[in-house]
């Protein structure tokens, strides 16, 4: 009788122990699976990048950067593409950054809590989720034909600025929100106006966070292809836009804004779409350059954010 009871307890204990072991095993299995997935994702990224580098290796020389596109793959280069990308990004920067920061400051510092601010907020959130090609259609209908800007650097820059705007607004707001209220109160206490508080304190202290958002937005703009194709960017350009900086007064001219152009991702897309393998080498080399640029910029942004997090103690 006693033995029976003992055996039962013993039995139960074994069952519970095996149950615990089983559950703990589940833990380990899941941790293993999670780690495996993350490592394979990272390796995938690495393989992708290395593959691009190996495929494009024959084109890694200075000529590739200084040559125009050509019918012969080996003689073709990305001069017009990288110049185009750089000029478009200048327009994007000057359009999106002031507007984005201003909207962010308004929403955080000025806006009263009412239906109207809510409406702006909902719009900003929704805009971030609109597919990028829709912005291309907007630009095609509005900028290219509506305003008659044509298929120019200006149009492309403004289009990408629309895409970048929500990123800058969200980054600005997040950075501003991290500034404690007593900083503002101190400034008000010595007689600063609302704008002085915003400009001299709030924007100054949220500088790092805003910069992070701007860099991430620019990185996205470099790689963005669909909207620029939609507005009708040319794929074969064998000339450079007029130089923005001249040797004679007034030294700066704006003719380049109205020039036709191509950008790096479009050049890459054009080369992938050709059947000859030789052009795929060019595409790979261009891809490697784009990816390097975006990784550098995103890496810089992450580094800045990390530094801010470590440095600032209110």
């Amino acid at each position, binding site marked *: 009788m006693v033995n029976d009871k003992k055996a039962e307890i013993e039995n139960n204990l074994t069952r519970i122990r095996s149950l615990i072991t089983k*559950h*703990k095993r*589940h833990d380990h299995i*899941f941790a293993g*699976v*999670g*780690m495996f*997935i993350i490592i394979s*994702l990272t390796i*995938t*990224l690495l393989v*992708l990048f290395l*593959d*691009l580098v190996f*495929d494009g290796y024959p084109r890694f020389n200075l000529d590739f950067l200084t040559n125009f596109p050509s019918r012969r793959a080996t003689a073709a280069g990305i001069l017009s593409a990288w110049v185009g990308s750089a000029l478009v990004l200048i327009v994007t920067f000057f359009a999106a950054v002031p*507007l984005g920061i*201003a*909207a962010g*400051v*308004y929403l955080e510092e*000025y806006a009263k809590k009412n239906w109207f601010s809510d409406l*702006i907020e909902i*719009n*900003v959130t929704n*805009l971030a*989720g*609109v*597919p990028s*090609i*829709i*912005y*291309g*259609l*907007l630009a*095609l*209908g*509005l900028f290219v034909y509506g305003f008659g800007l044509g298929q120019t650097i200006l149009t492309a820059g403004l289009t990408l600025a629309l895409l970048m705007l929500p990123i800058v607004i969200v980054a600005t707001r997040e950075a501003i929100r991290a500034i404690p209220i007593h900083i503002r109160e101190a400034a008000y206490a010595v007689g600063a*106006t609302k*704008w002085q508080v915003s400009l001299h304190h709030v924007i100054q202290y949220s500088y790092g966070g805003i910069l992070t958002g701007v860099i991430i937005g620019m*990185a*996205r703009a470099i*790689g963005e*292809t*669909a909207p620029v*194709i*939609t507005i*009708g960017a040319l794929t074969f350009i064998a000339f450079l836009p007029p130089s923005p900086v001249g040797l004679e007064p007034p030294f700066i001219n704006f003719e380049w804004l109205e020039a036709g152009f191509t950008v790096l*991702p479009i050049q*890459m*897309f054009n080369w*992938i*779409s050709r059947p000859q393998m030789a052009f795929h080498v060019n595409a790979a080399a261009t*891809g490697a350059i*784009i*990816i390097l640029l*975006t*990784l550098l*910029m*995103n890496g810089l942004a*992450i580094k800045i954010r990390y530094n801010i997090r470590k440095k600032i103690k209110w």
Partner: protein
Amino acid sequence: MAKLENPEVSPRLAKNLRRNILERCIEFGLLCSGIFAIFITLAIIYVLVSEAIPFFQHVSLYDFLTDTVWTPNYSIKHYGIMALVSGTLTTTFIALLVAVPLGTITAIYLSEFATHKVRETIKPVLELLVGVPTVVFGYFALMLVTPLLQKIYPDLTTFNMLGPGIVMGIMIVPYIASVAEDAMRAVPMAMREGAYAMGATRFQTAIKVITPAAISGIIAAYILAISRAVGETMIVAIAAGQQPNFTFNPVESAATITAYIVSVALGDLEHGGIGYQSIFAAGLTLLLMTLMFNIIGHAVRKKFAERY
């Protein structure tokens, strides 16, 4: 008025007045920047609708929705958007099939299992992965993944929906992982401690306590993923072919809505022509699809959201 002209007071008041006016102007300027966001939304709707209206005067809505052939550039013209929608839905479905499990597991792992150090190393890597331009992923799909799939399944054509779908899924994983992880981390520590105190393992806590508590945020991550997949352009334009084809078979080539817009934009666009208008009708369909998925997502979110 007499007071204002008093030399002792007037400069100060005048300065204040100027300052106040300046303040008002600046506030108005900032407000305009904010309103600009509303303006963009309205402009998107206006442009898409105003260009699509002439299109629908030419093509009946019934044909648009029920015809399964899309050939605006051929002599016998058909405008059945379903030929493009099928491509979009198929690639999106494949992408989600890859991204949802991988992304969710990654999120759970990062939030509940990974040590602080691992998490702080992995999160930046995920962010870098988000930054990779889609045109590069397109190259990846066409030159690496499709040839690899052809080794397993030799009948696969060069252009198919399977390869780009899978690559799109890989592209979306970091989005899901990052948003879902944020949601899980926001679940109060007390809930984990409660579960652990009852003897639950990490896995049980993650699945039975944290996931249900964070389900609203996790579904938000899925909604984001669907929007990304539906609107993704370059991967499918490069690797899925640009030939509209009414099929849900992933090994066939087909065009998505986005790929069609790109293929038309690459050619000569006659402003005001039916081809020009058709891309706006396609764009409008795309926007409505995104909107629909978002609304469904929000409804699901509301239904499952837990308050704690």
